[in-house]
């Protein structure tokens, strides 16, 4: 490195670059948050859906599944499971309700969470709400998630 490019210049690029792009990130964040109502399906974010999100969290569904592509890669993508199950909350509820306690021999198994009917309904409504989020290019690419 030539001596025309000094440590001081490098330090200034670091300070300037970091501050500038941090401000850009903040600006973009403000703009994104403002635009979210058009895509985030908040009109369907009911108390019940919020309860469903809480159940999703305290049962750690993300520990095996992905939701909008984020999470673990052991079990299927669930952002579009509502559509995949024929737009049926009943189908979703039945799937969760009838998981065998000891799993399925030799296969990747989902626990039996012993959820009440009300909890199952909350969780299914949450997944229906997620399916309604307008992800760019209508991600995932197809019905299989």
């Amino acid at each position: 490195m030539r001596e025309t490019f000094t440590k001081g210049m490098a330090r200034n690029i670091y300070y300037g670059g970091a501050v500038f792009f941090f401000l850009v990130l903040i600006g973009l964040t403000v703009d994104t948050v403002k635009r979210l109502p058009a895509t985030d399906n908040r009109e369907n974010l009911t108390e019940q859906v919020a309860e469903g999100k809480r159940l999703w969290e305290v049962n750690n569904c993300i520990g095996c599944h992905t939701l909008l592509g984020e999470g673990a890669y052991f079990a299927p993508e669930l952002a579009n499971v509502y559509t995949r199950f024929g737009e049926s909350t009943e189908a979703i509820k039945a799937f969760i309700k009838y998981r065998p306690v000891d799993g399925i021999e030799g296969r990747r198994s989902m626990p039996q969470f012993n959820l009440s009917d009300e909890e199952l309904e909350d969780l299914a409504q949450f997944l229906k709400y997620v399916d309604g989020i307008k992800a760019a290019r209508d991600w995932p690419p197809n019905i299989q998630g």
Partner: protein
Amino acid sequence: MKYESQGIAKLYFIAAIALFVGQILFGVTMGLQYVMGDFLFPEIPFNVARMVHTNLLIVWLLFGFMGSAYYLVPEEAERELFSPILAKVMFWIFLVAGALTILGYLLVPYARLAELTMNDLLPTMGREFLEQPTITKIGIVIVALAFIFNIGMTVLTGRKTVINLVLLTGLVGLAVFFLFSFYNPDNLVLDKYFWWFVVHLWVEGVWELIMASLLAYVLIKVTGVDREVIEKWLYIIIAMALISGLVGTGHHFFWIGTPDYWQWLGSIFSALEPIPFFMMTLFAFNVVNKRRRDHPNKAAVLWALGTAVMAFLGAGVWGFLHTLAPVNFYTHGTQITAAHGHMAFYGAYVMVVLTMISYSMPLMRGQKAANVNAQKHEIRSFWIMTISMVIITLMLTAAGIMQVYLQRYSADPLPFMVVQDRLAHFYWAREVAGLAFLYGLFLYIYSFFAKGPEVADVE
């Protein structure tokens, strides 16, 4: 070791390695569950093994960063640590809290753990990597504050070197961004958006400052290169890390319900994220090439070079592979993600901590470097772990390509579980490589106990 309080690092490093072993044991457990789906079900379902694996990783790396800071800051600041007793107390608090949390994951169903820890008062549980009960998270903040206070006071009342200040900035950033883990809105899009303010701004942001400063420190020590040269490189590297990584956060905002402009911004800026890792490779190769001494700790030199190379490959190259939106549309949330994640974490953060341990442990034990035999085993463990990780990554990459082709790209896509069955041989190969990695780790630990002739003290 010039200052007595540097020795506190030893405690932190021992805990780090012990937790690392735990992490890998649960890793190979999950690898087996991928192919023998009901292994340990229902006692330890996959998601429990996973949260143990990932949380142990994060906690042991934090112990590693803290130990590294306790070792290098007194030396750089040219004074003893501000409060050695605080460092020791915090060590035990962090270790016990961490152990209890992991035991909580294993012994109690997660929903029950949420009830017991009063998650409802401020619900923060149930998100990836942030599975810790809210009370544990509060504990982490307290430990982090005490740590930053201790290190901060040491730096502020001592010599402020560039390495010190960059490390401190990284650590403060780590603590500040962790606060976003307390924000858990009902709105899933908002939840996901700000979750990345912890995860991305950590591993593709402030953690890079920590990594670069630790690497710079070790390279100065083992090559004798001029501090001025290293300090200039360090500024350039971290400048590129933040210039690319801040808006580069956008490569996580492609498909989660956020505006379309992120596909452009995220792609362009994150495509630049390999640059700081490329520069670290140039930097490491260059200073070793131009070194003024042959340091007797050959293992440490190898770890330092290996860190730069593997971080560039795992974070830089493999990251670039799936960072552009048109590619990511098909690969998002597949084994490609897992492939990148493993090599990136190992190359950048696991290896930089192991580099610091390799360099400082002998010094804390009163030697210039480990004996010839110990170094031989350590160097062998370096190669076994590194090559195993490359194989793990290649197997997951191959699995990911097949998964994308069959499940995402095909005109007639197959269901997830059907595709997973087709990937079985890749997963078996990955598991074998994982077991080899575990063996490498045991060899690494053994190297600290191996006896042999001392190294010649060549300067």
